[in-house]
């Protein structure tokens, strides 16, 4: 079925530093025993069996080793948001965590309350389907890019479009990102260009001669000095925001079309989805692909990926009186069979698979307090919340976990036509 369900004990990420070659790449010369060496760390090694010397390497590390990285996560369905009339292309939490915005092929954007799931507003004005949305850093403005070639800015407080839309692209707008200061927007379009917009004047500042195929994804790094763009020509390019010059180009040998690109939370890596059913993590400074995540199906649709963080236990922060709990990162991406797959970023192992949607799952975003929101071609938006693992869990939640179900929230006063989220999963 999926690669999570193999019988051998699940691998865990290496906890101790292995000897490394000077450039940080493990030596691998293809010698027959190399593979065995590679997996030397994979054997389960209870922490008490480790040599004391190793534990004393540094106090913090030894202390942390007691807190094992969970090898499974248990996200459970929490709410289903309905209302869009066609497939939902993207969902985004607002930076302040209060709202969820979703955009759909039905040319509307809907704003939902992130805690209650109540439908707050429907933003109408685009003349064609909307592929992409982005929140301004202050959560007050939402930008949307549509197949009508226009980028609109929406005032969330009033639900109205701001008077001057961003006009300039010659073809569908495919991807958008706000700069961290909120003063610029970068957009990628089917016209193969990346535009950098001045938000205050609603005018294009620069056009980057980016790609030779539709630009499928753009992103700003956390301090705004770099822009990443990707395209179905198989290239990921890194740009300097101030000079708008290309600083680096990343290509995988297979040259598979890249459908989304995202900087890691610390800005040191980029995560890219490609249509060879792979999600790749790149060290863009070295131009090296350092992780390949597999297990999902992505051959046709532009599916977004997202980063998230998890701790050993839920509410671990309060237990450890003030001390910051150790956090690990996961990457999450949708699949064309409706699943969402969560991988541990370092070990590449699958932490959980969510049976998220009927048909293709398109978008995902990770919110505050261990929540995930997903959307798909089945017109629904799903919210997921992390729960403690049941004692005998092996990660597949839908058969084993009893879930507190919140009735699905349905837009406006439309009669409730959905079944509770949890029960639907079993069907």
């Amino acid at each position: 079925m999926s690669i999570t369900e193999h019988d051998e004990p699940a691998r865990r990420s290496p906890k101790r530093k292995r000897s490394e070659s000077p450039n940080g790449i493990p030596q691998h010369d293809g010698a027959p025993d190399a593979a065995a060496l590679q997996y030397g760390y994979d054997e389960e090694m209870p922490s008490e069996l480790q040599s004391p010397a190793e534990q004393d390497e540094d106090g913090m590390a030894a202390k942390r080793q007691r807190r094992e990285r969970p090898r499974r996560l248990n996200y459970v369905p929490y709410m289903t948001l309905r209302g869009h009339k066609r497939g939902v292309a993207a969902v985004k939490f607002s930076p302040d965590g209060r709202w969820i915005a979703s955009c759909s092929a039905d040319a509307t954007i809907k704003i939902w309350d992130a805690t209650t799931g109540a439908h707050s507003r429907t933003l109408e004005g685009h003349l064609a389907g909307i592929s992409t949305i982005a929140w301004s850093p202050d959560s007050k403005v939402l930008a949307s890019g549509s197949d009508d070639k226009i980028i609109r800015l929406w005032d969330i407080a009033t639900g109205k479009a701001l008077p001057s839309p961003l006009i300039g692209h010659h073809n569908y707008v495919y991807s958008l990102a706000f700069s961290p200061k909120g003063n610029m927007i970068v957009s990628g379009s089917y016209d193969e260009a990346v535009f950098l917009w001045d938000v205050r004047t609603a005018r294009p500042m620069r056009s980057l001669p980016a790609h030779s195929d539709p630009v499928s994804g753009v992103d700003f790094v956390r301090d705004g000095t770099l822009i990443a763009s990707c395209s179905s020509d198989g290239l990921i390019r890194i740009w300097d925001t101030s000079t708008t010059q290309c600083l680096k180009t990343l290509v995988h040998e297979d040259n598979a079309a890249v459908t989304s690109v995202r900087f890691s939370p610390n800005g040191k890596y980029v995560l890219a989805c490609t249509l060879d059913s792979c999600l790749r993590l790149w060290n863009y400074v070295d131009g090296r692909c350092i992780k390949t995540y597999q297990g999902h199906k992505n051959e046709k649709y532009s599916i977004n990926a997202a980063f998230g963080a998890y701790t050993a236990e839920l509410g671990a922060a309060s237990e450890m009186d003030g001390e910051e709990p150790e956090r690990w990162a996961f990457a999450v991406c949708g699949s064309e069979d409706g699943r969402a797959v969560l991988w541990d970023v370092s070990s590449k192992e699958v932490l959980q698979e969510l049976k998220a949607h009927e048909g293709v799952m398109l978008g995902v975003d990770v919110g505050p307090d261990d929540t995930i929101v997903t959307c798909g071609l089945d017109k629904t938006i799903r919210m997921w919340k992390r729960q403690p693992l049941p004692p005998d869990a092996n990660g597949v939640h839908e058969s084993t976990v009893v879930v507190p179900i919140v009735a699905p929230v349905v837009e406006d006063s439309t009669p409730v036509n959905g079944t509770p989220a949890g029960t639907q999963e079993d069907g």
Partner: protein
Amino acid sequence: MNLPLTDPVLLAQDIPDSLVARLRSSGQAVCLRFSWKGDLLASGTAKGTIAIFDLETNGVARKLKGHTNGRTVQSLSWEKSGRYLLSSSIDWKVILWDLKDGSRVRVVSLGAPVYIAELHPQNYLQCVAALYEYRPVLADLTATTPKQHALPNLPKRAPHELDANPEKADAKHFTTVAAFTPTGSHIITGTTKGWLNVISTTTHQTIYSTRLCSKPILLIRLSASGRDLLVNASDTIIRTIKLPDLSSPTLAPDQIRLDVEHKFQDVVNRLSWNHVAFSSSADYVMASTLMNHDIYIWERGHGSLVKILEGPKEELGAVEWHPHRPFVAATGVESGRVYLWSINTPQRWSALAPDFLEVEENEEYIEKEDEFDVQPVEELQKRRLDMEDEEVDVLTVDAEQLEREGGKKGGQGGGGEFFRMPVLLDMNESDSEDEMVAIGTGQFRRKSTAREEREFEDGEEEGDGMGDSGAGVVVQDVEEDTARAGRKRRRP
């Protein structure tokens, strides 16, 4: 975060070399000041308005109106986090602005036209101002009705230096300029008779004085470290002076000695200098010249002239050096525009494809032993996947990076809090009178469709691209097909 990818050659360059943009807001800019982070540039106009430029977009981020209409803004001074700005004008007022909402936190009338006013570097509720024919003032803005302390004009003299008739000698002896040291412990003032005074901020007493020349001191600048002083006087000589660590508790006033390190002057043309500034590291000194279109840059090690920045066809007034980049801003005296110089960053071709390499000259390619060996695809793939076993941390942000972003700031204390200026989407852009908006290195875009482009006879912009770029269309400097070229090269 772009540093690891930036060409080291460019990083090594520390003087700007080309005019990259002109900015204009309503009115004629006469004074300038970069924010501490360097992302904003405040400009004050001859008509009393203030515009804050966003240097990422080269657009106006905020306009501040509050000084008496038609009275020149004399000086601007930023608080560390970038939230507050102090402006002074010849309308007697200093105004402390809150850029969060553009409101006026304090409006203080000092009773005389203000030459210059500066915020205390650690406490934005304290400022010093030099006034026209009056004593300089240290104002405490904590209360809504600010307290003002007059500071001495007269230099500190040993008893034997006192004239028999002090009243007569000291008449018409006024302070023209005042500046805080970086810790705020002392104020350095310059007078109409060429004296420099060091005044303690706490006791308001002059602890040291020295006379540089007999002409009025025009401007005093301190380097970021506080150990270097730059003085422009009306005797056409710019002086750099080494300062002792004034904040050191062990420093006794009688140990202070201010010695002139370098004198910069134009001995041939006897040019006098409009405005002076240190570079970000204080390694260079820059000056705009009276009746001349150039900015002179001297290097401080040997005191030699290293660069003349040119471009605008007009005399330049205020000049400012960016707090940490080779980036210079200056105001045009006639047009009131703001000119920006930076370094030229050519596109590196090696960045356009992963296997491009920039070489000095042609090299013969020697193929690797196994370059054309056919290996089973699956095995290669598996091997590659197996090699991806390093620990990756995608969450932790370097402390260094955090500091650069200004999110958390240790040390220094006071004013380090994080502030991000709100982005105003309803800025009245009709205020901006410039017909072309600079959009990057040598890049300009037409602001409105139907206007002649007489601005650009200077010839350093790309005329072709601009001619047919109407509103909303931008000029590209790299050919459209670089993207394609990058790709073609990969597939033989």
